[in-house]
């Protein structure tokens, strides 16, 4: 059955911003789907609000709409583009939810659009808990005993039947938002409320507890001819009770007999058929009672998912690509297996290695958040590793996390010596439980003891025990007397050189490099094996490789001219999709230049780890040891370290010292910008200024600095990433408490204090240099005042409040910096503009988080251009080549910017909803997980779109609560007037209300929380507020306003915590309202990014 000829144009719905539960994996699936459908000759229309994605590259789809993923905007796109079909299964839960909404509104019917890949009935059946259970039963599957409730009364009745503990599962949520185990009546009320609030249809499933059972998952593909295959089975190391996204998972399934596995497989296939998934990929999760083998179905997703991305990377089978092709009518047997070429995609991959995925958490960003893991996902990323055995894969995955760990043992937990306490602690699943398990076993806990505490399967514990026993066996051994045989055994168990050096340092200090030298002297090096879908049964044509300590390499290294690109590792706050975008672009550009590209990365969600992104893919940890071994076998002419964010940058000096050829800006130049002293010298040479600053190694020194420099001060530890532990302090008391509580201060680890430039405009500049010529790629103006981390602030391009003279000055300064820092490639500079003076905040000679945004808005793929610059071509040559657009005109940025006839605004998206109690206030420490873009011919229009896209839609009526800090009060007068004119009622706390009255503005006064009920939080909880503008004073523990903010987050009420953003919001509402008076909808339409760029 060949592809369908009756459809020509297909709309793909993306997943929007990166949030917890929905990350890069949907960019990966989206890119695969777009490419697969284009390859078949279809016209592909794409909607995704996330500008950092590769899928929204203007070169990929035929028309790309960077617009909110809401029924309103998608209808506009459908009305304009008139696609024949919509593929809703590629963009995660977001795409499925909006599809259901569009269907309910009759949009598909209205425009004669067909859904392909999944039908509404199937989506509903999988989503609706009750319907799902019935279908599962019909298909002969066991369900957990459970009760579906929509009211508190029903819930109380259900709890009487179920007893404690039981599980709450809200309907239709991402990553299990609002779900969790309830252990006692004390927490019943709170957890029920959270669940009901999270569910868009106010529906909960209360379920028998399966805590401690095994959890497994099958990835299934089905075609319209009812051919169905299981691509991969995945077993969770963490027993039931921890969300799969937060669990350590292993492929293939390790602890089921074939009889059990086949029953499971039969059930999964029957279920998928019964649900009515016509074509495509879906996952089915099961829970298995380890004592009886009883199998309970937990859930299924009729779409590609985080697990399907993992399964694709784990097996080499491209689930999203095949799903897209099945959706247009192919059957599995008609599609080739890309890797073997000779055999069809209709098979079940056999793997001859072990895959371990470990989630990456960022609790350090949210110190008050609960680290106990449950059914609501909390991790922000993941690392995957491949090894020939489980211990090897596990230890590789652990060092891929980039949390400073170099394996299972030897981390911070090494200081715990109380085994009894550890055995109690490991009973509770947290982000670091596995390390505590390792430590307990290191101290002598038996497999049985650990099993009793954790219910982690004996098999995993026995394998972990192999690592512990072997590492323990060399404790106290000196390097010289380490038997080579033992060294080999340790390497086979995945023990890193770094960890081994640590163990052997008991008497004399052993360095990682000592172990490396010993290994190399004895020719102990890893070999590289291929991920080939078939356990070597057939020849494979895609060099998708992993390292292992075994005897034979089948990697077939070439002698081509090649470049290695080091990727960004697991997603975390501060480092995510944007860097993957850059790495992928580097691979694309260098391929276009005829250079062999080699990608090294360990993040299974990404496009960069798709086997056809680069010529060769090494799925490996990004540590010095692992990278050096790859360089040893590949012998590249250059290594790119400036695209993967902090991860490869941290390696750059170390690699350079080992003689690795790093291309682009030299590690020394990078170091200059990071070393404050060298950097100051450089700035004065260029004639630029910085805020006054100082360094302090004691609290007394800090006070001295504060006296010299003056408050407010921006303070931070000397080594920080993503603004870790940065804060603004306003007086001596705040400074003292910061130093006492937030950081360890010593002569090794001084604190840096900068005069905080309050009320300054912050500007991000992306720029490029080929060593001869310098260009500014984009000047972005932040909407919030300086002081908010650039990853969290919203910003606009082209800038709005910078004069031509200022832009000229910024351009000139940036070019001077490019020259004097000897930049080869990209550089990002952050400036603050205060009272007409331009201060340099930070210089980063590497790809920045804003590069994808800038590239899309100005229409030049800067990451590609810079990659080729690094490989030796000049901007002039590339401009003449023409394939990346007219670069020449960027020799004068001012003229480019002035010609842009549209505006793009980036808005950040935050994970606060997942961390109840965490303050939603923005500051110098980055907290956002993702971003959206609004683009329009007007600024308010762009702002409005960005707000809708970031799920912070601006209300049209209702009550606005205003509570602003003293210095903002005068500025909010006009805003309040405008709000009244727009028909809003203003609610304010006494102080603000009185102040407004003195300016003739009437508002209703309400109690602060501490003034007693009924207070503002009561009102917010009752749903009486439709917009909150809250700019708090200082950084102290402002309990009152903090409760307001967290309640707003929980109740999903639009919230602005800076006056600048609130002002933009009011302008946008004004424009919308005036258009509405003329009977017009605002924004009135949609344009594709290709249209904006004039293509």
């Amino acid at each position: 059955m060949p592809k369908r000829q009756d459809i020509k144009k297909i709309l793909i719905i993306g997943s929007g911003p990166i949030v917890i539960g929905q990350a890069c994996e949907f960019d990966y699936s989206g890119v695969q789907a777009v490419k697969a459908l284009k390859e078949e000759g279809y016209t592909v229309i794409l909607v995704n609000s996330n500008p950092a994605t590769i899928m929204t590259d203007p070169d990929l789809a035929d028309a790309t709409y960077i617009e909110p993923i809401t029924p309103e905007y998608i209808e506009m796109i459908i009305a304009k583009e008139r696609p024949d079909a919509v593929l809703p299964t590629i963009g995660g839960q977001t795409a499925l939810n909006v599809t259901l909404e569009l269907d309910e509104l009759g949009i598909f019917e209205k425009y004669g659009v067909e859904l392909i890949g999944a039908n509404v009935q199937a989506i509903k059946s999988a989503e609706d808990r009750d319907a799902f259970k019935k279908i599962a039963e019909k298909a002969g599957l066991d369900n957990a005993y459970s009760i579906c409730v929509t009211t508190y009364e029903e819930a109380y009745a259900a709890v009487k039947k179920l007893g404690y503990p039981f599980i709450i599962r809200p309907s239709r949520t991402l990553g299990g938002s609002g779900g969790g185990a309830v252990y006692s009546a004390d927490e019943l009320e709170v957890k029920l409320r959270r669940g009901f609030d999270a569910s868009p249809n106010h529906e909960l499933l209360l379920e028998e507890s399966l805590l401690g059972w095994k959890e497994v998952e099958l990835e299934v593909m089905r075609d319209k001819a009812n051919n169905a295959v299981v691509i991969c089975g995945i077993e969770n190391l963490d027993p039931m009770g921890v969300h799969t996204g937060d669990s350590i998972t292993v492929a293939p399934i390790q602890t089921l007999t074939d009889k059990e596995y086949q029953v499971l497989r039969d059930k999964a296939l029957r279920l998928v058929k019964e649900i009515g998934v016509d074509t495509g990929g879906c996952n089915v999760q099961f829970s298995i009672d380890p004592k009886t083998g009883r199998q309970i179905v937990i859930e299924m997703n009729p779409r590609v998912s985080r697990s399907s991305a993992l399964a694709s990377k784990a097996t080499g089978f491209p689930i999203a690509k095949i799903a897209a092709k099945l959706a247009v009518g192919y059957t599995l047997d008609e599609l080739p297996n890309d890797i073997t070429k000779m055999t069809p995609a209709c098979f079940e991959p056999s793997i001859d290695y072990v895959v371990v995925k470990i989630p990456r958490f960022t609790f350090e960003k949210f110190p008050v958040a609960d680290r106990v893991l449950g059914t609501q996902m909390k991790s922000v990323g993941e690392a995957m590793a491949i090894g020939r055995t489980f211990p090897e894969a596990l230890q590789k995955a652990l060092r891929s996390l980039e949390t400073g760990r170099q394996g299972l043992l030897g981390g911070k937990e090494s200081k715990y010596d109380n085994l009894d306490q550890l055995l109690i602690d490991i009973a509770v699943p947290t982000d670091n439980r596995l390390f505590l398990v390792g430590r307990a076993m290191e101290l002598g806990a038996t497999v049985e003891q650990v099993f009793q505490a954790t219910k982690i399967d004996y098999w995993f514990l026995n394998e972990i025990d192999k690592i512990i026993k072997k590492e323990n066996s060399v404790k106290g051994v000196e390097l010289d007397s380490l038997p080579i045989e033992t060294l080999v055994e340790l390497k086979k168990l995945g023990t890193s050189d770094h960890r081994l050096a640590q163990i052997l340092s008991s008497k004399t200090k052993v360095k990682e490099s000592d172990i490396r030298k010993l290994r190399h002297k004895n020719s102990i090096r890893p070999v590289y094996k291929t991920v080939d879908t078939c356990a070597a049964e057939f020849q494979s044509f895609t060099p998708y490789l992993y390292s292992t300590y075994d005897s034979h390499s089948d990697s077939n290294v070439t002698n081509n001219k090649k470049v290695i690109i080091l990727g960004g590792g697991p997603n975390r706050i501060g480092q995510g999709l944007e860097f993957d975008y850059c790495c992928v672009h580097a691979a694309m550009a260098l391929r276009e230049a005829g250079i062999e590209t080699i990608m090294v990365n360990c993040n299974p969600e990404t496009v960069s780890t798709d086997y056809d992104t680069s010529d060769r893919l090494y799925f490996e940890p990004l540590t010095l040891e692992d990278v050096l071994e790859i360089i040893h076998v590949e012998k590249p002419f250059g290594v790119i370290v400036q695209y993967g964010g902090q991860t490869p940058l941290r390696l750059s000096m170390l690699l350079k010292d080992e003689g690795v050829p790093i291309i682009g800006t030299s590690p020394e130049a990078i170091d200059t910008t990071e070393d404050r002293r060298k950097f100051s010298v450089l700035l004065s040479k260029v004639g630029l200024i910085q805020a006054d600053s100082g360094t302090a190694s004691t609290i007394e020194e800090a006070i001295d600095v504060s006296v010299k420099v003056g408050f407010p001060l921006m303070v931070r530890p000397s080594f920080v990433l993503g603004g870790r532990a940065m804060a603004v302090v306003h007086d001596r008391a705040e400074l003292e408490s910061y130093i006492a509580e937030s950081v360890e201060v010593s002569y090794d680890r001084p604190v840096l204090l900068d005069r905080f430039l309050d009320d300054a405009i912050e500007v991000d500049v992306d720029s490029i240099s080929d060593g001869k010529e310098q260009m500014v790629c984009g000047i972005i103006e932040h909407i919030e005042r300086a002081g908010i981390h650039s990853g969290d602030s919203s910003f606009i391009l082209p800038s709005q409040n910078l004069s031509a003279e200022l832009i000229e000055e910024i351009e000139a300064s940036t070019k001077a910096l490019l020259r004097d820092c000897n930049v080869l490639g990209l550089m990002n500079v952050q400036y603050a503009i205060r009272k007409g003076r331009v201060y340099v905040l930070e210089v980063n000679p590497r790809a920045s988080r804003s590069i994808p945004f800038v590239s899309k808005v100005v229409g030049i793929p800067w990451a590609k251009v810079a990659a080729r610059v690094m490989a030796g071509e000049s901007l002039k040559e590339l401009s003449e080549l023409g394939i990346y657009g007219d670069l020449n005109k960027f020799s004068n940025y001012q003229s480019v910017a002035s010609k842009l006839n549209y505006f793009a605004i980036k808005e950040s998206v935050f994970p606060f909803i997942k961390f109840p109690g965490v303050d939603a206030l923005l500051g110098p420490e980055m907290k956002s997980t993702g971003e959206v873009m609004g683009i329009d011919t007007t600024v308010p229009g762009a702002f409005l779109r960005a707000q809708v896209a970031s799920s912070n839609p601006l209300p049209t009526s209702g009550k606005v609560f205003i509570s602003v800090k003293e210095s903002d009060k005068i500025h909010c007068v006009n805003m309040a007037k405008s709000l009244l004119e727009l028909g809003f009622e203003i609610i304010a706390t006494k102080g603000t209300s009185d102040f407004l009255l003195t300016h003739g503005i009437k508002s209703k006064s309400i109690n602060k929380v501490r003034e007693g009920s009924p207070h503002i939080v009561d009102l917010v909880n009752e749903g009486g507020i439709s917009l909150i503008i809250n700019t708090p004073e200082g950084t102290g523990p402002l309990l009152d306003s903090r409760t307001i903010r967290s309640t707003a987050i929980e109740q999903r009420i639009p919230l602005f915590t800076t006056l600048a953003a609130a002002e933009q919001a009011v302008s946008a509402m004004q424009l919308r309202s005036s258009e509405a008076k003329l009977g017009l909808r605002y924004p009135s339409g949609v344009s594709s990014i290709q249209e904006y760029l004039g293509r």
Partner: protein
Amino acid sequence: MHHEKPAILVLEDGKVFKGFAVGVGEDTDKEAIGEVVFNTAMSGYQEILTDPSYTGQMITFTYPHIGNVGTNSQDIESDKVHATGLIVKDIARNPSNYRSEKSLPQYLKDNNILGISGIDTRELVLHLRTHGSKIGIISTRTNNISDLVDKAKTAPNMEGLDLVPNVTCKKAYDWKEGAWCGLQADGKSYYTSYSDQVLSTRPLVVAIDFGIKYNILRLLTEIGFRVKVVPANTSATEIMSYKPDALFLSNGPGDPAAVTYGIETTKNLLGKLPIFGICLGHQILGIALGAPTFKLKFGHRGGNHPVKNQITGHVEISVQNHGFATKAETIPKDIIVTHLNLNDNTIEGIDAPDLNAFSVQYHPECSPGPSDSQYLFKDFYNRVVNN
């Protein structure tokens, strides 16, 4: 820590792999010889080891961790281990599964089977894929490599080898066990057992035992047959004396062309009884119908090959275990090719409608492996009752 005894695997072409012995005590030396083959299934090692079709072969498992779920008294396909050797990357000494009764190393030891672990099995598989199946020797005597190579070279090749007499039953018997039942809330699992009374009313199938897997017998019983198993050299006359309603030709080891008596019996019964054959039984039916076999370079062994049913167009994920295949170009005109392997287009199933005889090269009884093709037992039953 477990002290590991060194062992080596030597192939007839001189290739050597060093590893550790499995299934042998520290103070005894042992040697095993056989055709080295590889199986890509990731589960079901106990079923595979006890499958009589592996007689004379040493099995390399491509999945690196073997033995994770131990062994038990239910997951068997015959009364003993038939493979002559086991070759793995890693063997689990501490199994984990609620049904496990014994670790795999202990099970091998009790069955007197030698294995080798700790070798680069992917390297071995690539070698076999490139150079074809090889005779190999696993030995704990690790210093006489050239002797071992010589011994491997002189060992008989599979081609022309009749291994059926080693595995067929000595005398006819009745089979009464049905399908597996497990995963119940009480944790009990068992095979359904049928009484003589129930069985007495059913159509009788005589199954010629060329090395039959238990699960074929279980599924024939489960679908509604009364099953009598007979030795491979049972004559057509003897078979007819049971007054059967149908004939089943089982799987088994070795070269089908060498099983001349089985081919003869089949020829004699063609057209007289509905016939269903699996694996070796399929090859024998093919030869009886005029289509000879050839030896595949390295065979098909695993649980993931796509087989397309040419009649329905449906693709089945099949269980494979064969080193020989029916020559496509020799298939007579009146024989329908019903199933094809989508990986290499080899013949996976034939039907002689005029003679009411059909067969498949692969293993619809699975165990281990996917159950996609179990419908063939129902097809057979329908053919018999409609006959």
